[in-house]
């Protein structure tokens, strides 16, 4: 475990609702080393966003609560920390970029103001210096006319540009880890590529690690070194990227990979797009066995009786399946 930045062990983030306890994240292990890009994939509702937000403790704690586990940041557990201590870590050590650029920026403050706010806070600069820093960050993310646009409001930027601003804001204090929660899902395809490229550039420049959360397998294949696959609040497979795509062991992972539309195959054999039948189970009172059981082609009795443990099937390759 050389240089492990983030080590999530058995994290359980549950939510109290009128209908019962929703186990959004139910025993998740994840780790990210310095400088690597780890993809976290899964369908909507599998717990990836909750995991990401749990790291920075951005979950509303009245309905949400940590039911167990640890979030170790450079060896230090973040869960017992209070808000003041968390604030020292936010933006400075770990930064996050959200999915919806259209609503993630405060509409009444200029873009420069919002970036400068972070800079001024963590680097103890005065306002003028912070604004200059903000302009610099905008330049860095390739926003043309940065010097002038620093005084513009978010609504004066397009979606793609707003996401760049978010990235600029997240990186302004050069954090060691960037959590990107579906950063391109809300953007056009052409812009998606630009944003991913930008993130890669920034990563190389600052040497930071990235937790890339997405449901697009194609993106993962291109940008990540390792991949964690989540389903219904649990990790079902984890592997280096080549191993995952070359030899996916969990039926869910196989389903995900097979459901990627492929232009070349379709032209050859006129295959139908494969989808995984069924829907994600309710996280309210999950069944005792494997949660993918009701959608799995290879389900057996053992699968239903108890949760299979995560077992190693190759170097760095773990699967939660009895197969």
């Amino acid at each position, binding site marked *: 475990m050389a240089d492990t930045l983030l080590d999530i062990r058995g994290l359980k983030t549950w939510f109290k609702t009128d209908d019962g306890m929703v186990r959004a994240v139910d025993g998740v292990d994840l780790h990210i080393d310095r400088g690597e890009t780890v993809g976290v994939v899964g369908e909507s509702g599998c717990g990836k966003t909750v995991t990401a937000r749990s790291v920075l403790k951005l979950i509303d704690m009245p309905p949400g609560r940590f039911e167990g586990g640890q979030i170790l940041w450079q060896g230090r557990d973040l869960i017992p920390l209070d808000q003041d201590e968390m604030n020292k870590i936010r933006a400075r050590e770990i930064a996050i970029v*959200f999915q919806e650029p259209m609503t993630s920026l405060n509409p009444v403050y200029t873009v420069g103001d919002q970036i400068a706010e972070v800079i001024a*806070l963590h680097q103890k600069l005065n306002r003028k210096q912070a604004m200059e820093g903000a302009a610099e960050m905008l330049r860095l993310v390739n926003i043309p006319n940065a010097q002038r646009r620093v005084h513009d409001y978010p609504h004066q930027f397009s979606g793609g540009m707003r996401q760049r601003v*978010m990235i600029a804001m997240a990186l302004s204090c050069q954090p060691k880890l960037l959590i990107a929660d579906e950063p391109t899902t809300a953007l056009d395809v052409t812009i998606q590529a630009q944003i991913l490229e930008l993130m890669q550039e920034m990563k190389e420049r600052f040497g930071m690690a990235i937790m890339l959360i997405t449901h697009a397998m194609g993106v993962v294949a291109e940008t990540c070194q390792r991949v964690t696959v989540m389903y219904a609040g649990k990790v079902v497979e984890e592997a280096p990227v080549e191993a995952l795509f070359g030899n996916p062991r969990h039926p869910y992972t196989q389903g995900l990979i097979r459901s990627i539309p492929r232009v070349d195959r379709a032209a050859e054999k006129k295959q139908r797009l494969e989808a995984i039948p069924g829907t994600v189970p309710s996280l309210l009172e999950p069944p005792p066995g494997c949660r993918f059981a009701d959608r799995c082609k290879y389900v057996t009795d053992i699968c239903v009786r108890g949760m299979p443990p995560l077992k190693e099937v190759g170097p760095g390759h773990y699967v939660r399946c009895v197969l």
Partner: protein
Amino acid sequence: MNRQYLMRRVLIALPSLLGISIVLFTVLAMAPGDPFEELATNPNIPPEVRLALRAKFGLDDPIWSRYLHWLFAMLHGDWGFSFVSRVNVDTLILQRLPTTLIVIGSSQLLAILVALPIGVLAATRPYSLFDQIANTFAFVGFSLPPFFTGLLLILVFSVQLDWLPFVYRADISATGWQFYWEHIKQSIMPVMVLGLFQGASLVRYVRSSVLDVIRLDYVTTARSKGIGERKVITKHVVRNAMIPVVTLVALQMPIVFGGAIVTEQIFRVPGIGSLLISAMLANDTPVVMAVTFVFAALVVLCNLIADILYGWLDPRIAFR
């Protein structure tokens, strides 16, 4: 905030004013009876004067020409003559307008100063004890009609405790600090009645607005920047939450004016509200018309101010 927006809002205000004047004039014109019949029974007014007045007001002309005459006269500052008080109406109104404005202004200020912190605090601790108590007090506050609150305050502070005078006197003979102190003492109750009534409904609006804003994505972004919850609330949330509240305060102005009229009656404050009532009881039509128009104009002015404030607070608006 840009000039164009400002100009546009002012230009919109004018037709509103015009529209209101038409409504008021139409109402008057449709009213049965001669607005000057009172004068017919008044022995001090010789019949020739009454006929001359009728001619002057063109009471026998078609309605649109009467309206234009009236409008013209109003714009020229010729608001008519009050037979009851024997002065020009505009003098009468200008004499009493400042008092009304001061009472309304200070009460609104009080309302905002009280409602803002309470509303924000209640919203940041939803369903807590503080929130429930604040909510209940808010309900009590705006369910108590201002006239009743006024009477209660008089009962407690003037009758029982004898701390505050309950009749407003504009002619206080003291000087210097004593003068101001006396003025403040007699203004406390009317201002409090109005302020607390408005403040009560504001608390709920502020709370509701803050609750709406606090769930939004950019608030989570702000938290993720590590700036601290307090700053997140005061800098990011409040500024956005105030935008709809500002509009609301302006939209409530018509109601506030109603409360002001009642308050002036109870405490005998010499403002235009009590003027309206006494004019009605004395059948002094020119005054009634003029005061109603002034109130309407004030409402339009408040809406204009609200629009401007809105444009200033929310940078998205001016760019439409």
